[in-house]
């Protein structure tokens, strides 16, 4: 399994830039963008209200066939910031413009998301504490698991807070917890809500601190069993290797052991508040420790662990590791080194402010990442198809089923490194995608419907232009000309409308973003 290696430098754009000056100017520009946005839009709330009003404005009515071609820059930003193109999302963004759309997405709490919330209201466990879940559903019940999995589908497809949902996906993998690792089914809901979702657009140190105290994580990485005299290193190792410094970070096995000692006694309650973090002093190793060369004096108690978290969160290796991973997630498998550097610097300048880093990443010059599109992972793939075709998901469990078949069931990755994000990993399993796309338009997925005939009728393409219209509907027009031509030939062969979309969603162009 390929891990992200922050020391492995991709081809640097600096190396291929014609002049150092150009490089400098872009670097400065990135810096300006990073720092400037907060000044420009200081009054977040006022801004968001304005954007919400703008979003309600409709573009001029008229035949879609005369619609202006999508703006590539805007489309690229939309494809990065969301689980896929949809005409309505594009129209919203087009009214605002790319930068304003980004700022709107960066203030998710101010975006009206009542439609998605209404769909989520049926999942009673989402608002429960772990103790309440335990009281309501006994230990043999899988309702909490399915509710949480379904909520992922609902949010990816229907939430208007798309950038937040993308970051939730990112952090869910970064702080991966296998929901089948009993008793995680009763703890992950709280972790998802109070750790991942709560801090998805906050700061990395806050997120890290919350994760370190999450019962699901304390269980999954065995810190609940980490006690003085019998230190459990699992969390300590993954904390440095996967959560902060990265596997090539400047730590040793000795550091792992010392960090483990710092976290002795960090565990969670059984009763009366199941899953509540507690520091259990009697199990803490109060001796002197040395972590990354820094002496942590004896008698620190609970503060030992916090000292470690603070050190790690502030470490330049962490800044680089997080910056690179976010760039890979949003921009491409080999993100330009100067952008990664700029994001790293932003991390260090802002104490790990995630929104500030996102501004740098999502305002990066589009040409940098359009050249190397990314392969959609199954959640992204299915959500993008359901979004663009305005599918009605009456039973999200049916989509969860296909995600499991595609190997991407929410919260089911067993290892602490999270679902991989490479085309090598996902590209070998194409048939389940083709089957999903086909089944959707054949009406073969119970309680999930997409109306091919209505979609094409709304575009009203002239004969011979159906493939162009379908390309517009599914992607805003990013399928290749060769794909469009092949598709049109298939359409011209007299095939039924229901077959058109399933095929279009199966070609390679739709697998990428």
């Amino acid at each position, binding site marked *: *399994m390929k891990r992200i290696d922050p020391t492995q430098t991709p081809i640097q754009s600096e190396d291929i830039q014609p002049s150092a000056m150009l490089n400098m100017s872009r670097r400065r520009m990135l810096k300006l963008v990073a720092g400037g946005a907060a000044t420009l839009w200081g009054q977040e709330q006022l801004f968001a209200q304005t954007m919400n009003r703008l979003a309600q404005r409709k573009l001029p009515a008229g035949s879609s066939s005369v619609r202006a071609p999508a703006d590539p820059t805007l489309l690229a930003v939309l494809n990065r910031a969301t689980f896929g193109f949809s005409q309505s999302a594009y129209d919203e963004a087009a009214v605002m413009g790319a930068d304003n759309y980004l700022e709107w997405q960066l203030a998710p709490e101010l975006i009206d998301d009542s439609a998605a919330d209404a769909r989520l209201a049926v999942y009673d466990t989402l608002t429960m504490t772990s103790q309440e879940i335990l009281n309501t559903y006994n230990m043999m019940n899988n309702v909490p698991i*399915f509710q949480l999995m379904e909520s992922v589908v609902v949010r990816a497809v229907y939430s208007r807070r798309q950038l937040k949902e993308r970051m939730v996906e990112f952090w869910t993998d970064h702080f991966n917890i296998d929901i089948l690792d009993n008793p995680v*089914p009763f703890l992950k809901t709280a972790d998802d809500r109070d750790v991942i979702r709560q801090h998805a657009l906050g700061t990395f140190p806050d997120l890290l601190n919350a994760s370190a105290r999450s019962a699901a994580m304390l269980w999954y990485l065995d810190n609940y069993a980490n006690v003085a005299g019998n230190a459990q290193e699992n969390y300590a190792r993954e904390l440095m290797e996967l959560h902060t410094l990265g596997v090539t970070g400047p730590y040793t096995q000795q550091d792992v052991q010392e960090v483990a000692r710092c976290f002795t006694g960090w565990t969670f309650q059984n009763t009366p508040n199941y899953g509540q973090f507690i520091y259990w002093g009697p199990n803490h190793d109060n001796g002197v420790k040395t972590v990354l060369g820094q002496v942590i004096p004896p008698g620190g108690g609970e503060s030992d662990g916090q000292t470690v978290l603070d050190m790690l969160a502030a470490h330049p290796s962490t800044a680089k590791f997080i910056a690179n991973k976010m760039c890979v997630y949003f921009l491409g498998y080999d993100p330009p080194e100067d952008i990664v550097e700029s994001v790293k610097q932003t991390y260090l300048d802002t104490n790990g402010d995630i929104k500030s880093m996102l501004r740098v990443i999502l305002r990066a010059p589009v040409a940098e990442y359009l050249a190397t599109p990314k392969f959609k992972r199954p959640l992204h793939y299915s959500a993008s198809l359901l979004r663009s075709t305005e599918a009605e998901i009456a039973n999200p469990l049916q989509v969860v089923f296909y995600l499991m078949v595609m190997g991407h069931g929410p919260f089911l990755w067993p290892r602490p490194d999270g679902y991989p994000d490479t085309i090598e990993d996902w*590209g070998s399993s194409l048939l389940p995608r*083709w089957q999903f796309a086909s089944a959707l338009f054949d009406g073969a997925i119970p309680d999930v419907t997409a109306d091919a005939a209505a979609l094409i009728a709304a575009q009203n393409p002239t004969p011979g232009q159906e493939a162009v219209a379908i390309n517009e509907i599914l992607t805003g027009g990013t399928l290749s000309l060769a794909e469009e031509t*092949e598709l049109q*030939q298939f359409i011209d062969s007299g095939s039924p409308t229901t077959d058109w979309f399933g*095929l279009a969603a199966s*070609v390679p*162009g739709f697998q990428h973003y």
Partner: protein
Amino acid sequence: MPKIMSDDLCCNEFKKWSKRQLLEEARPKARKDAKKPAWLPRVVLADSFATRDALVVVFLRGGMDSLTTVVPYGDANLYTLRPNIAVQPPGSPDGAVDLDGFFGLPPAMAPLLPAYQANQLAFVHAAGSPDPTRSHFDAFKFMEYGNPLQPATLFSGWLARHLQTVPPLGATPLRAMAIDDLLPKMLADAPDALPITDPSTFDFPGNPGTAALRQAVLENTYALAGAPLAGSAQSTVDTINLLGTIDFDNYIPAGGAVYPNSTFGRAMKSVAAIIKAQTGLEVATVDLGGWDTHNNQGVIGGYMANLMNDLSSTLAAFHTDMQANMNELTLLAMTEFGRRADENVSLGTDHGHGSCMFAMGGNIAGGQVLANWTNNELLHPDLLYQNDSLDVTIDYRDIVSEVLQNRVNNTDLGTVFPNYTPAFQGITV
């Protein structure tokens, strides 16, 4: 110290919360597709299985109780440890069927006797993974990645590394197949490996009337997509076409073999059909779960008897069906750990350590129970592993390595099982 969970609670959850279980509960009702052409085995490969066995790996998930499946009735300690649930010695009511004067099969495993007597089935007892973990998931990981007692830094499967270190048997799109929704860890990172839940429905989806045209569009567009998608799409299409030539529904097993109509029975029947079709498939993996028998184990006429019936009847049918192919095939069955030697108050058994493996094939040294187990020693209280379980005296890597080297021509065992020097046990002839 707030201790959160007992091991026993964990296991009920395990049964409830396997990925397979979730998938089954979420699965929509299946639709049956159009009828296939009549059964016609194909012979497409010049390089055949005459030189290299097809390898079938059956994983018995949940921790199989080997003290029931292959009863060491000759060790009198068994009846002290398990006064209520031990299978009785041969000659007793519901007693074991004798194998060698020390071990026997419970009645529900008796269907395997003909294969054993034909010297094509061996049991390996007090065997398994040496890792002390009693967590199902950790045990799976260590066993399937092939790194017990080592740092958890290996994330590819031992079967995958086997496939990486031997040349393909031919130009096949499908070197390995897991009868599963996802690849098991054994096959993580394997070349040309696909998870196929049901080979009879690995079909090109949608409207049959336009399938050929749509398949052509995908082949044309993916051909332009570059690596790795171009190759992957081609493999998928080729595998669809390959499996499409096999009429699984009308497959008639040889020798009058009758597979149970169970998930496991159907899976093994599919594997038989594919191997006979000589498609170049080198490895198939099949799971049979449900061995986590904490309560009311039911070794005679109960829960576990039913499970053993499924296992033994299926393997017996496979043995009969594959008689003509026995010299080109090896089957290994294993489990993540055995169960405690003593019964619990619920007339079940809890997680233990050593267990039992099965090996079947024309070149397996069958008709014996391989074990370092003489007289009464292994179940003697002084010799129990951690005072409560059968020990692992034969590492599963010894058995697997010998099969890989002698039956599948793998000469790079150091890659398959890093940092381990296998000791061959004579499982192959």
